[in-house]
């Protein structure tokens, strides 16, 4: 009987000892180092082309102060518009986003967005992926990856389609 209890004790001691030794899990989250971009992880040298009417301005995302969204440093789209220094009120315009490969939300039936939501939209300064505040409840088609162009135009009357 003594043997049983000593074995019992040693069994638990062995397993619990191994269990108690550093049970933390290390995680590399795969953060912003998108090789598809042409600049650094902080966005330096990464640009997005902002255009309206005859104007087309390359905006350096690395030169804009980031905002924290869910703990991630992103650039607000309204700040991108402001950095372009295009003299127009964004809230009176609609915006189209075009990816590096030419993808645009309208190709999936998602209408261009009204300018007043730009202050709740973000672009990753490294990957140029778009993120929208989840309270907007936008469909996935607006989460453009690798956005290269941000094209403004006068409203066509279809912008409320985003709320379909």
């Amino acid at each position, binding site marked *: 009987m003594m043997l049983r209890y000593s074995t019992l004790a040693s069994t638990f001691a062995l397993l619990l000892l191994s269990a*108690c030794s550093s049970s933390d899990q290390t*995680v590399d989250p795969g953060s912003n180092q998108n090789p598809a971009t042409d600049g650094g992880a902080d966005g330096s040298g990464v640009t997005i082309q902002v255009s309206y009417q005859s104007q087309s301005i390359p905006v350096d995302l690395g030169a804009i102060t980031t905002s924290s969204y869910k703990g991630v440093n992103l650039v607000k789209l309204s700040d991108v518009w402001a950095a372009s220094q295009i003299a127009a009120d964004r809230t009176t315009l609609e915006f189209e986003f075009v990816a590096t490969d030419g993808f645009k939300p309208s190709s999936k039936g998602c209408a261009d967005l009204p300018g007043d939501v730009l202050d709740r939209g973000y672009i990753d300064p490294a990957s140029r992926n778009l993120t929208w505040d989840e309270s907007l409840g936008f469909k*996935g088609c607006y989460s453009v990856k690798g956005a290269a162009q941000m094209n403004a135009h006068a409203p066509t009357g279809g912008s409320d389609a985003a709320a379909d």
Partner: protein
Amino acid sequence: MRKSLLIGPAAVVCWAAAAFAQSATGPSVVPGASGSASPAASDKPPAGGEEGRPLEVVVQGQRPGTRGTAVEKLDRTILDRFGATNVSEALDRLPSSISAFSARGERILSLRGFDQRQILVTIDGVPVQVPYDGQLDLGKFPLGLVDHITVVKGAGSLLFGPNGLGGAIDIATRRPGEGPAIVLSTETAPFYAQRLSGVGTAKQGPVAVLGGVAFENVRYFPLSDSFTPTYNENGGRRENSDRRSLTAMGKARWELDDHNEVVASAWHLDGQFGVPPGVFDLTRRFWRWSDWHVNSFAMAHGYRDAKLTVDETLYYSLVGNTLDSYDNAGYSTQLLPASGTSTYADRTFGGNARLAYRFACSEGKCVTARGWFGGKKDWHSSQASVGADWVDVDSTTLTGEGQVDGPFGKQILWLAGTQVDAEIPGRSAAAGKPNAAIGVGPMGALTWQPHRIVDFTASVAQRTRFPTLKERFSSAFGNLEPNPSLAPERATNMSLDASVRPIRQLRADAGVFDSEVRGLVIQVPLNSQTMQWQNAGRARFYGVELALRSRPLRWLEVWGGWVAMKTRRLDQSPPTDVIPYRPDQKATVAVTVLPIPELAFTVIGRYIGSQSFQNKDTSQWGTLGGYKMIDARVDVMATDGLRLWLRGTNLTDANVQGRFSFPEPGRQVFVGASLAWPEGNRDMMSPGTL
């Protein structure tokens, strides 16, 4: 990394050494319940050979290809020892299987590198899956109604049906008229989780019936205290992790005469499940499975005599669900564009016939010719949102398999067979119709037993998996482009297994496996926003598996295993050849000590190695480091048939993510009781508990 690689084998070797050292004093207890029995241990073939009865799958025994690490059988005792509450958790205790919560709140497993779509899963021999998706969350199936689970890996998976590219898993419910007449079981984690199950069976003359019900109500699962709150998750009670389900089952068996038997079964699962959002996701999903149900009906007839075994089975399954996407964490409104309700209503109708004919018998061993012929039709109907048009697609699969196995002299067992699968696509939901396809899968295996304590088995098999309806036709709300012309995946599985049984109290298995998949179906980007399933890849899964089962003393049981594995795509170069969520190694050690017959202590330790994944927000590859989990339980036989237990899971309260952004539960403690009548047994040392 190198240090962690040594943990698994070191543990196995340590326990093996202990078993050898202590074996001299142990009684004769046969550790035969897990995996295949040694040829030497089988004095004569059982009546009806090794064939299963109607609605039963039997894979253990003399046949090559079903030996060593290639087969695991988890019987009721092991399932109890594991302390798992559902099928997924039970399988997750195996070194060769890995599962974790996904973005859909499901626990989808992989087995030796193959994902669950590539594994044939059956309940009582009847395929169980969402017909559209080719897989199903086994975490939704309570263990209360399960008698045992059999896992066949790689090359050994012939004679089960189509689509078992990398193996097969059969979940067996209890056989009517056998075992205790009534088993009642309950378990609770005070204030947030309750589980109840009851099974009753009776036999009157040639008729036996069985009925069972299982209920689960979990308000939430707790996160580890060391979880760091994020914007999406405060910690403590995991958001939207509630689950409630009711499972009911009925089976009846009628022995018409000495040779004929009819079995019918029906079971029903109905539940509601929350989908915990990703804790790091920039865009959360507020999802709930408002309805998730499976109804399955099967009827089978079997004939058995000294030489011939035949059975025929018909089955019909209805699998449906409703997924509600809400506006926010209130889970009550659906006003925003991304919210809505989508519905699946799928069906499967099928049947199969198995036969086995034994001849040329000598010294208790026979040559056996086996056949398996079957067909099934899968229908999928779905509605992407309320008021939208229903989408209907279907497909028919036919399978014929033939196999002959037998002895060659006293030391050799051989097996040769071929499986032919054909798919006849039906209605299409995209431009173009899929082409009919055929797959031919030869299999061969050889067992050599140079001594009664050791045998070696080499096996090779080629298998085919037809693409699922989802892979062909899913648009995933515009994120996927359908590909009706998707072709089947094909795999060549090879394994070499050795089983050693130096003493009756110890069995050690070692296996080397190597699988190559061609025409691997993977998602390929068509543009920055749209993916498409394509036969774009080749992959190779290879590794080594060790298993140890020992009962060196009457009061000590050891169950352990270790798998080291490499999974990589052959059509890519490093570092982009990674297959996500495939740990480089996994080890499990379970030790049960029974100081007195009425008391059992079990400690289960698991180590899961590091695994790669792709962050969906950044598209970059990351790594989840290896982690350990410790579970333990105490079982007490209070009176005849009454068992009480206290168990804890993740005792060290490790904060780990099984998948990135989806943490596993923290420490949990449960108390439970079960009552079996009238065959209660105070002694938990009964043989075969390993």
